[in-house]
């Protein structure tokens, strides 16, 4: 059993790292600017398409990544400046409509410009899987443990990026200023923080982080208009899990979510096997697990794992 559990963790962590990176952007934008961005995944998708296009034109991977991230940042900043600033003080319902509208606009834009044909983007962290055999004492059945080398390297990149960005918002001067704005807007104005710029920073970095998640998942998802729809759902779950307004909470929440999801499926598989149910595949319940986690978190601990101590702000 130990090997199976380790195996699921080895498969779950890489996914969790991407959930966390996706959740980071959602939490950041909500925490600082107060907008729940349902278009996060599709905004990231547009950035990936920009990167793909630059790659197709120039053949330079660094240039492609840079263009994608910069494009995402510009898109985020643009949404904030041109749209969100004009509809300030919106209700949650109003925000839902606006960002859902954006989701569809980005989707349509991608369809028109790039079409539905799935496109390929190079795997940034390709590596062969590593097979490990644990000593017999721990592993009586002598099962192979497969360490997905490429996925783990991708995950490492996602984790380093996520924590790097969390650190930036925790300690850098612009990061501190943005968090101060979220905690007390009048106080922030009183010390001379440009509060509009703080929102724009959150949107730019938030959308760029979704582009990064998109680049990392592209080898698996291909580059297509729907490529980040699922990841966005996981990102939202990670964010809810972590406390929604806390980017650090979202990153940790994502990692936990990736592992929990796999372990639950493992548990269900053995449960079904023991009960002699052969007609259903436990892996089909993976998405349901996510929804259950959202519901359980919201009922048991609505403030999430990393609840803010004072009135729900980063």
């Amino acid at each position, binding site marked *: 059993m130990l090997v199976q559990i380790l195996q699921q963790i080895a498969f779950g962590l890489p996914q969790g790292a991407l959930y966390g990176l996706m959740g980071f952007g959602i939490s950041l934008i909500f925490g600082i600017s107060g907008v729940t961005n349902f278009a996060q995944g599709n905004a990231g998708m547009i950035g990936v398409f920009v990167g793909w296009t630059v790659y197709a034109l120039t053949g330079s991977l660094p240039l492609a990544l840079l263009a994608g991230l910069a494009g995402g940042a510009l898109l985020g900043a643009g949404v904030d400046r041109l749209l969100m600033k004009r509809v300030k003080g919106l209700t949650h319902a109003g925000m839902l409509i606006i960002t859902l509208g954006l989701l569809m606009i980005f989707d349509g834009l991608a369809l028109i410009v790039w079409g539905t044909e799935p496109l390929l983007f190079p795997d940034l962290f390709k590596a062969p899987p590593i097979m490990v055999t644990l000593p017999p004492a721990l592993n009586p059945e002598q099962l192979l443990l497969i360490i997905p080398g490429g996925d783990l390297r991708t995950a490492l990149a996602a984790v380093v990026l996520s924590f790097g960005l969390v650190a930036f918002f925790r300690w850098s*001067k612009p990061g501190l200023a943005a*968090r101060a704005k979220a905690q007390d807007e009048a106080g*922030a*104005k009183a*010390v001379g923080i440009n509060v509009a710029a703080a929102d724009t920073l959150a949107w730019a970095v938030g959308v760029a982080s979704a582009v990064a998640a998109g680049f990392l998942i592209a080898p698996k998802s291909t580059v297509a208009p729907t490529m980040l729809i699922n990841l966005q759902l996981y990102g939202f779950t990670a964010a809810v899990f972590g406390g929604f307004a806390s980017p650090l909470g979202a990153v940790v929440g994502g990692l936990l979510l990736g592992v929990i999801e796999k372990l639950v499926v493992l548990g269900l598989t053995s449960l079904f096997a023991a009960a002699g149910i052969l007609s259903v595949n436990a892996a089909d319940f993976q998405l349901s697990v996510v929804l259950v986690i959202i519901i359980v978190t919201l009922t048991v601990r609505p403030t999430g794992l990393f609840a803010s101590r004072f009135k729900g702000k980063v």
Partner: protein
Amino acid sequence: MVLETGDFRVSYGRITALKGVDIKVAENEAVAVIGANGAGKSSLMNGLAGIVEAQGGVLYKGADLSRLPSHQRVKRGLVLCPEGRRIFPELNVEENLRLGAYRRGAVKTGLVKVYDMFPRLAERRTQAAGYLSGGEQQMLAIGRALMAEPELLMLDEPSLGLAPVLVDQVFETLRNLRAAGIPILLVEQNAVKALAFADRAYILENGRVVMSGKGAELLADERVKQAYLGI
């Protein structure tokens, strides 16, 4: 003149809180604004700081600031210590103070000065500001404003919620700042202390200045005594 307003007005939707106010603050001067609850004192301060929208002129050191956003006003040394403290609760004491110097002011020397003034804050430098007592939070708000090395310091009820000893300490601090040549515009509930401290004062009623004069004169005025000093 350091500050001069002309027909200064603030409204919130259909509510007009300030209906055309002209006040002045000269170099080295401490000016108090007193008035009942809802008279428009905070609207005046927030309007001057650019935190709420306002109409009318704001002449500061000869330049018209009325179109400038709040952060540009801070940059020029017009600094407000707002009503209700408005500190950053999740950030620790030192981060709050550092942000005080976000736009201007030297962090290192500022921290030394503020910790010297409020040793209590030095003891709690790594504690989340939200966990400070009300009085400590007020010290932090004042300290944070001083970090910007204000050239005109505006304070909105800085002694609110402070124990009498600390109120005295705040006024002592203000006296020192004025002695150091920093002009002060002060809003206070504690009218007796404010009038005793200020060179000049304005009395605000329903969004208008209804009386003004030397602090000591107003303190002796029968009408002021009855309406605001409760003597």
